[in-house]
């Protein structure tokens, strides 16, 4: 694996070009270009805020700040994995004809998505901790914000690992794409993207089987979203989301477990990718 990493380093310039290509090509035929990476999530936030505030009468203030803590990492994971799954197939002609370390292709897709992810967070902080103050909404800046890079690192490990796994599998089985689509569609509601993870803690199922909650939180994406929310924002007020108990403190032990699984996904994904990469061009 070390040999493979050295080879990857040798091709870092190609990786950079691939990222630029990925970013350029995505919006090249659209009139509004880069705006398309901002407008859909913005509309999502508006719809969800309306739904929870006005339809479900949720008393949680600044709901949009909470929901974005879920939407931003979720979108990064979802698009990276789906794009990476197609990336090798799209570049099949290249890898069939010329030698390049094949992992640069899914990696470039993840990096391009990471740039959108970073941009989204930059807008998030500008809006909620800058502009919001001007119009009288005061969100306190918490010292736990310092954990932000650590949480992001865990998310990146998980995303890269999953993307490598998915892209390698997609070369052999077309089913992977359909399975993933379904998993992400349902995952959106199971993983605490639009609601707090604490809600699951207070379900009757999790009350009777506390092990299920542990399992739930060991999913890296769940833990990452939960950790972002609890380190950036104040706990949600009592009674919001019709929660049957007080907001739960961030459990670092569970987060460490999820981080371990994320690292395992990365190492395992890279190993699997390397074990299969010579067979990509030989599929019958």
């Amino acid at each position, binding site marked *: 694996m070390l*040999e493979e990493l050295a080879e990857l380093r040798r*091709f870092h*310039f*190609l990786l*950079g*070009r*691939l990222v630029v*290509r990925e970013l*350029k*090509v995505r919006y*090249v*035929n659209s009139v509004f270009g880069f705006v398309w990476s901002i407008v859909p999530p913005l509309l999502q936030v508006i719809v969800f805020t309306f739904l929870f505030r006005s339809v479900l009468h949720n008393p949680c203030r600044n709901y949009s700040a909470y929901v974005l803590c879920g939407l931003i990492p979720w979108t990064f994971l979802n698009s990276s994995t789906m794009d990476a799954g197609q990336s090798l197939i799209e570049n099949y*002609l*290249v*890898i*069939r*004809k*010329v*030698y*390049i370390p094949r992992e640069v292709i899914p990696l470039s897709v993840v990096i391009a998505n990471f740039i959108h992810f970073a941009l989204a967070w930059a807008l998030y902080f500008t809006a909620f901790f800058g502009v919001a103050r001007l119009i009288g909404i005061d969100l306190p800046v918490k010292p736990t914000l310092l954990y932000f890079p650590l949480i992001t690192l865990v998310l990146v490990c998980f995303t890269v690992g999953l993307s490598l796994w998915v892209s390698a599998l997609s070369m*052999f*089985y*077309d*089913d*992977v794409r359909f*399975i993933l689509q379904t998993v992400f569609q349902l995952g959106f509601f199971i993983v605490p993207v639009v609601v707090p993870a604490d809600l699951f803690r207070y379900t009757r199922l999790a009350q009777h089987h506390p092990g299920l909650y542990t399992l739930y939180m060991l999913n890296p994406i769940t833990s990452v979203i939960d950790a972002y929310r609890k380190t950036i924002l104040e706990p949600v007020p009592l009674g919001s989301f019709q929660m049957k108990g007080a907001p739960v403190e961030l459990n670092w032990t569970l987060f460490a477990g999820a981080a371990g699984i994320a690292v395992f996904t990365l190492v395992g994904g890279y190993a699997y990718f390397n074990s299969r990469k*010579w067979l990509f*061009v*030989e*599929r*019958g």
Partner: protein
Amino acid sequence: MPGSSSQPNPDAVVVEHLSKTFHIRHMKSLKRAMFGRGTAPTTPLLALDDVSFRIPHGQTVAVVGRNGSGKSTLLGIIARVYKPSKGSAAVFGPDSRRPRIAPLLALGAGFHRDLTGLENIEFYGAILGLTPREINEKRPQILAFAELEEKADTVIRGWNDGARLRLGFAIAVHTDPDLLLVDEVLAVGDESFQNKCYRLIDELQAAGKTILFVTHDLTVAERTAGRVLWINAGKLVMDGSPAEVLTAYRQSSEEPAP
């Protein structure tokens, strides 16, 4: 591993007892992969069977043979796209540097249709291992050779096959390759461009570059190559001077000599 060396080697390409078996798997879904293990039929296909040869630096070698004889597989293994099943294929540069292999991609396989010619030069150059500075230096030469200066900043989508081929060829030969691999793509360009390519190949030959090309056009093999390899059903049938090998090949395929 192929493609790396610590000291200069007198040969540019060393192929030893090279065999390649493809396993054509007839399973495409997870269901069959999970529950059908062992029952999924795989057909082994012996694409190359114990092939050995050496190409000294500066030689131009043509590979001839019928369709499906294993020519492209051979080039693919030398380009490090496939891994050998048995034996080895190694490429060496004239000095101890890492050798630069430039495979000529069929019709610019590495191009993206939604990028401009210039953007594609940058990208394609990076695939072939050029540094940003080298790409900047070579860009005018590449565009001039491909006769695409006017089109350079337009999107490739609208280009014809010939223009794309010209750009691909121009980039590949301007990467200053130690070994140029050409898999019968030159037939697409128009005659004046083809002539230009052959002149350039002459120049590359004069500059001491090693060239390995696959062709069905025996007159091209006769004119350009100093040596011909004839491959049939994965086996190296004959290896020798163009006159000798091509005569035998023509006889076997009952093709009248021109």
